[in-house]
């Protein structure tokens, strides 16, 4: 589904990703772990097309199309979803308005009919219910005044509504309390664990991986994938730390 080959990039002229390769097939869940500043968020933003994240080399193909040929909104319409480490606040725009415009923009780009107001509300209720988020929260402006955990939960409601093929989730587990972690974990499974979908989880902790069991775990350090393995690699990292594992 996603093939990244030898990707390099720059932010403000500073090289961050330094030849990163990774391949994710439909039906798989991958986890990326790695020290602070390694380039994990940079990878997510670069794949999402954030302005300022300059691709300087390499390739990323998403379902056979060159991801870097697409504008950020076209990548979303093609089925890419980015869960933000720091979800953005948008005063004056309600979650419902934001999501309805987003979904209908995507549908339009794919040549599908827009959802009516009624159909959309039904969908939003269902996905909010799945994540245990009060519908009242969705009437409020996007992420404004939400607690850290509420923002992450709201992002998963967004993912449920937009129903992507590939979700790249950047520290979706950070800021979640123990119960919320469980709810978000089972939400991710319910929405994304399907034969035609895939997930790339960026995380620092094993906890989330207890709920969303990865097929592969990778270590990203200094802009490259330096080690890959099965789920046991995450446990090993948690026990031994990056220095030991990366050096070995």
């Amino acid at each position, binding site marked *: 589904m996603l093939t990244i080959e030898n990707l390099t990039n720059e932010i403000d002229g500073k090289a961050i990703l330094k030849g990163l390769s990774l391949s994710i097939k439909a039906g798989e869940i991958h986890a990326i772990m790695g020290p602070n500043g390694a380039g994990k968020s940079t990878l997510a933003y670069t794949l999402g097309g954030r302005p300022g994240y300059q691709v300087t080399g390499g390739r990323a193909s998403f379902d056979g199309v060159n991801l870097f040929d697409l504008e950020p909104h076209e990548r*979303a319409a093609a089925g890419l979803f980015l869960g933000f480490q720091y979800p953005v606040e*948008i005063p*004056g725009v309600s979650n419902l308005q934001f999501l309805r415009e987003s979904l209908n923009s995507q549908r339009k780009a794919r040549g599908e009919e827009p959802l009516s107001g009624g159909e959309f509300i039904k969908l939003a209720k269902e996905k909010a219910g799945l994540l245990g988020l009060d519908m009242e929260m969705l009437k409020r402006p996007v992420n404004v005044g939400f607690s850290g955990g509420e923002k992450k939960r709201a992002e998963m409601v967004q993912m449920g509504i*937009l129903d992507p093929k590939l979700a790249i989730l950047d520290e979706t587990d950070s800021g979640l309390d123990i119960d919320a972690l469980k709810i978000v974990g089972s939400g991710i499974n319910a929405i994304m664990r399907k034969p035609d979908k895939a997930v790339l989880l960026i995380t620092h902790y094993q906890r989330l991986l207890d709920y969303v069991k990865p097929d592969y775990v990778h270590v990203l350090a200094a802009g490259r994938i330096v080690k890959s393995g099965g789920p046991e690699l995450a446990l090993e990292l948690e026990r031994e730390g990056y220095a030991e594992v990366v050096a070995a």
Partner: protein
Amino acid sequence: MTTLTLPTRRQEEWRYSDLDALAAIWPTPAPTRIDVAAGENARHHLLQDAGEGAAAVHDYAITIADEARLDFHVLNIGGKFGRVTFTVTLGKGAHFELNGAIIGGGDQVLEIITKVTHAEPDATSGQTIRSILGQRATGSYLGSINVARNAQRTDAFQSVKAMLLDRTATANAKPELEIYADDVKCAHGATVGELDKQALFYMASRGMDPATAKTLLLKAFVAGVFDDVADEAVKDRLEAAALAKLEALV
């Protein structure tokens, strides 16, 4: 009667105006008078949507008598030069509320000029102006508040925010206070900003095309200006005109 000479840019209240466009319609007609009688509540609005290339000047001379209130909503979007001015005198305990939006593109020069005089004690006034300017448009707000010596317990605010869509657009905001009383609360704030890039990327990452995302942010920016228009038909007309103008701009 025709001794009125064309103003010059040296005059403070004309310093950002399009005087060439003004010349075509000079002299402008006498101001529209609004006199709100003691204890009354009045509501007025203006949709300045003159045709392309036209010049339009609307002057209001307003008195609000003791304990009376006037709510005025203005949307200034039309013509090559669109100017709306308010000269307001407040009686004891009176209130003046102005909610306005300026939305301009092309080479438009749009302005709102206010002179509010708190002549008696206990009067309040509030002015909220939101401007959205693209291309080479200029939007200006010049607002002076004059508080007379005996106008104790005056409470006045001016909130002026402008959003520039292009580097070539200009926003001018000049709130001015002249206060001769001592027990007075006056607050004014003016900001100029541009669309939040982080928000635009967040919206794009959810699939929103750039025009839809910008329109949504701009709608949020001016939302509130027409919230308390009492007449639903008027409100719909102002909001629809603002939206159509925005959509043409992004």
